[in-house]
């Protein structure tokens, strides 16, 4: 009998594999089970054939036949690779694993990023440790932690007080010392560039100014196109030209500094007024006698200021509010004030009778005011918004955005005009695409009855009549460095200015002619040449700039990320985003290091939203940008969560006897007892996992398919929300803990007494 060499034989195992692959490729289903099933069928077939090895006359023939059989199925398998990764949840798995492992290691830090422009707090878990220190970079600031629970520390960092970390890398080496045991961790580092955002203007003086909150500076532009700037205190938010004792002054409010800054027009400081932190917008009454300051924090209100003699300002009145005031403006006179409330998506109207301010019925818009300005006479208010739903009900259209400007008659306190801005031009190549009038962001009313409107989404400025009649005069900024423009200001005599926070620039125009351009941040070219590697701050700054532009940029559907996530925050509205119940918009701040994303945890990386949503659902973008997904991801990750007022107060002293620490120490044991930490463990207060809705909320889950998953959100910044749980059905944290947890599967809250639940809710508020 002729002996057949092993080399001319195709083993049964290879035959089974090949047959399995061939069978799978006949009807490819990109899931593991299908491959296993095909292998199983192949194995049964081989059983039937009694598992005999195929034999060939030569080794070459064996190789040729095997390769020929396998080539097509392997090519099909390769082609289906991306679908496999998607179907089996493997896309971005590396990002998820990195985030998860970082939180599992001890010590663990959340958030995993440092911002060098603002005060912030970190949670650090170091099991069993009684003391903790963090050193930001080699010989950088050393921060001492305050123990707030067993092995859990709160660490405060204020760059203005502690100093900036050394180095130029976009990643920061951090040495964590827990009871003297040193460990090294890496944090992302964000050094924001100058962001001149909103203008305050004085057409009479031919001046406009824009604060840059990120770099603590104020930029003043003159009608002749010249510019000057000055350093302010921590986090300038808004400014106003205001006359104090006959002298023109520039008043600057701050988010973190506790005082208003008063400057003369040479930008020399001439006074201060203590008002506490979280100052917001400013408004000057038409007579120039009083100045209104919006104040956020734990006691939202409006402070009314007047001249106190000797060039000083003093508080002359207060209006208490239920929510944080966003935009404020006076109406027809000093006795009438209009305030926008983002969470309520409405305008509030206050009138002063004698010394008391009373509120009339709020004017419901249905969506928050994106920008707001008053007419010269003050009889009308113009509001930019993304929809108008006076009945307060959400629009049921999928991802419904309809950019528009509303006219509010202040006396009648009703909307009297509606001007849809989004439209299509000849630049569009696809049906239904929108590319003009998208995302109105800045408004400036002029004395001649016209209005300037900046559009961040379509990168243009329009001049329109305030009765919205006639075609707009369009100033296209797309080809200029003035990307994603925000602020627009009237400088008088037909001169106007526009600002670009993303581009870090301000430009002055006379009609359509640009007469001056001031780049207060480094240009793209400068950043590119300053960059030594892909991981340094210059490269990151460039990527962040492109990402910020992409965040505000209109897709062909006329929507941008900004349309619903106002500057990264929620628009406090509910939308149909393709699921049965309408869902409230989530904030995208504080997302860094919390993969996966979206409510069902279906996106392990932020960049995948571009391919998964922006391209197919929003029909993509008109402008080509190769790195848009990665840049967008980087920008979103650079958005920090808002600092809680209690955290800022603690940061000032970092005292272990601060009420915040006390609140923590009372709440943390209850958090453990209710087993909240099973899914929301410190320091990020999420385990970055997803659960079937029905497993946690059986009653609520009955309304939806059994397979719907729920991403475990981080509880950091929980107190900033106006509604809680997946669809915003809970209106208070107590509701989350009691009414919405009747089955006791979303934490063992049944184990707590009512008073303990109250303590737990207060604890959750300040996370």
């Amino acid at each position, binding site marked *: 009998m002729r002996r057949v060499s092993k080399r001319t034989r195709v083993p049964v195992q290879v035959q089974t594999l090949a047959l399995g692959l061939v069978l799978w490729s006949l009807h490819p289903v990109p899931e*593991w089970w299908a491959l296993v099933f095909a292998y199983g069928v192949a*194995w049964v077939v081989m059983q039937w054939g009694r598992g005999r090895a195929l034999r060939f006359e030569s080794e070459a023939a064996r190789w040729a036949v095997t390769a020929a059989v396998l080539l097509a199925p392997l090519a099909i398998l390769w082609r289906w690779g991306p679908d496999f990764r998607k179907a089996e949840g493997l896309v971005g798995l590396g990002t998820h*694993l990195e985030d998860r492992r970082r939180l599992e290691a001890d010590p663990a830090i959340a958030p995993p990023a440092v911002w060098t422009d603002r005060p912030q707090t970190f949670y650090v878990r170091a099991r069993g440790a009684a003391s903790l220190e963090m050193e930001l970079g080699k010989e950088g600031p050393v921060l001492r932690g305050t123990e707030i629970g067993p092995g859990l520390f709160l660490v405060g960092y204020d760059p203005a007080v502690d100093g900036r970390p050394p180095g130029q890398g976009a990643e920061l080496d951090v040495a964590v010392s827990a009871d003297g045991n040193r460990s090294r961790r890496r944090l992302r580092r964000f050094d924001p560039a100058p962001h001149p955002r909103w203008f305050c203007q004085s057409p009479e003086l031919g001046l406009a100014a824009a604060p840059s909150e990120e770099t603590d500076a104020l930029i003043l532009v003159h009608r002749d196109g010249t510019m000057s700037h000055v350093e302010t205190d921590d986090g300038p938010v808004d400014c106003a030209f205001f006359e104090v004792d006959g002298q023109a002054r520039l008043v600057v409010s701050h988010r973190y500094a506790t005082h208003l800054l008063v400057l003369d027009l040479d930008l020399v400081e001439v006074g201060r007024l203590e008002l506490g932190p979280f100052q917001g917008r400013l408004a000057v009454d038409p007579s120039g006698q009083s100045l209104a300051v919006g104040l956020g924090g734990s006691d939202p209100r409006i402070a009314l200021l007047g001249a106190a003699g000797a060039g000083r300002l003093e508080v002359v009145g207060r209006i208490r509010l239920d929510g944080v005031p966003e935009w404020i403006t006076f109406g027809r006179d000093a006795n009438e004030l209009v305030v926008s409330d983002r969470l309520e998506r409405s305008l509030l109207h206050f009138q002063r009778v004698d010394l008391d301010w009373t509120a009339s019925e709020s004017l419901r818009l249905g969506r928050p005011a994106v920008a707001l300005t008053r007419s010269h006479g003050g009889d009308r208010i113009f509001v930019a918004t993304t929809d108008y739903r006076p009945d307060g009900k959400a629009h049921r259209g999928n991802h419904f955005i309809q950019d528009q400007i509303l006219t509010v008659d202040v006396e009648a306190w009703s909307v009297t005009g509606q001007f849809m801005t989004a439209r299509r031009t000849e630049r569009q190549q696809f049906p239904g695409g929108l590319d003009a009038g998208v995302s109105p962001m800045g408004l400036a009313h002029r004395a001649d009855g016209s209005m300037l409107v900046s559009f961040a989404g379509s990168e243009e400025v329009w001049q329109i009549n305030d009765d919205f009649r006639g075609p707009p005069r369009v100033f296209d900024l797309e080809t200029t460095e003035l990307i994603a423009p925000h602020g627009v200001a009237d400088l008088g005599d037909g001169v106007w200015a526009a600002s670009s926070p993303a581009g870090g620039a301000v430009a002055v125009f006379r009609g359509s002619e640009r007469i001056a351009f001031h780049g207060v941040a480094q240009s793209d070219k400068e950043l590119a040449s300053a960059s030594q590697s892909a991981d340094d701050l210059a490269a990151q700054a460039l990527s962040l700039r492109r990402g910020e532009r992409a965040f505000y940029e209109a897709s062909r559907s006329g929507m941008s990320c900004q349309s619903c996530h106002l500057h990264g925050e929620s628009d406090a509205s509910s939308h149909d985003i393709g699921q049965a119940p309408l869902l409230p918009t989530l904030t995208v701040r504080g997302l860094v290091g919390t993969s996966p994303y979206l409510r069902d945890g279906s996106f392990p990386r932020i960049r995948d939203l571009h391919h998964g949503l922006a391209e197919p659902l929003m029909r993509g973008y008109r402008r080509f940008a190769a790195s848009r997904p990665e840049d967008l991801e980087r920008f979103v990750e650079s958005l920090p969560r808002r600092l809680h007022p209690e955290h800022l107060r603690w940061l000032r002293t970092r005292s272990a006897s601060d009420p915040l620490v006390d609140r923590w120490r009372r709440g943390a044991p209850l958090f453990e007892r209710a*087993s909240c930490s099973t899914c929301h463990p410190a320091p990020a207060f999420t385990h970055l996992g997803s659960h079937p809705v*029905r497993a946690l909320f059986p009653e609520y889950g009955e309304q939806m398919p059994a397979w719907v998953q729920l991403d475990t959100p981080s509880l950091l910044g929980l107190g900033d929300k106006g509604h809680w749980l997946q669809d915003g059905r809970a209106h208070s944290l107590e509701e989350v803990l009691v009414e919405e947890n009747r089955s006791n599967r979303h934490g063992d809250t049944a184990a707590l007494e009512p008073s303990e639940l109250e303590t737990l809710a207060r604890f959750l508020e300040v996370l």
Partner: protein
Amino acid sequence: MTRRGRALLRVGSLAGAALVWIVVDSRSEPWELGRDVALLRGTGWLACAALLLSLVMSPLGRLHGWWILHRGQGSSQRTVVGSWAAYRRAFGVVAGCGAALHAAVALSTYLWTSWRALLEVPYLRSGTVALWLLLALLVTSFRGPVVAMGLVGWKSLHRLAYVAAALVLHHLLLAPFAPRGLTLVVFGLTAVVAPLRWLRARRVPPR
């Protein structure tokens, strides 16, 4: 009792003791869902550990045999390799039973209203496929059924244990409660040890 029987008894006893500890430990959780999760994690890791141990038994046996041969004790090499193989089977049987128990616990507690999720959620789907594979391997791990079915491709069937391990890894990397660090370490160690099965020693001389 045969060598295989003894190995199965020992490994089964060890797994039983571990199971008792898992149940007792989970009962100490005051919260119902906490108890479910503890039981799920315990049974899951028990099955996973048994599967990985069964995969490393042959490589470790080869290593042990190679070492014995190296020391000039070639006559005991066959015995040693056979012992390791007996434990491979015993751990495999425990893995199959553990996986079935893990699935039963999951379906009766955490997923009791969400069975459909087994088909729709990737990590649950992987777990389900791995379970079916392990059950198939469990049934064909005993001589009786193998003879009754007249199986000839036993090896190519039982190589699916590696596929099951890969599916379990996928299951763990996406499951909400599985620690990723530990998962990567244990699977990494297995991946390091597994190639040792190709360690070629000299042919064992016949007794």
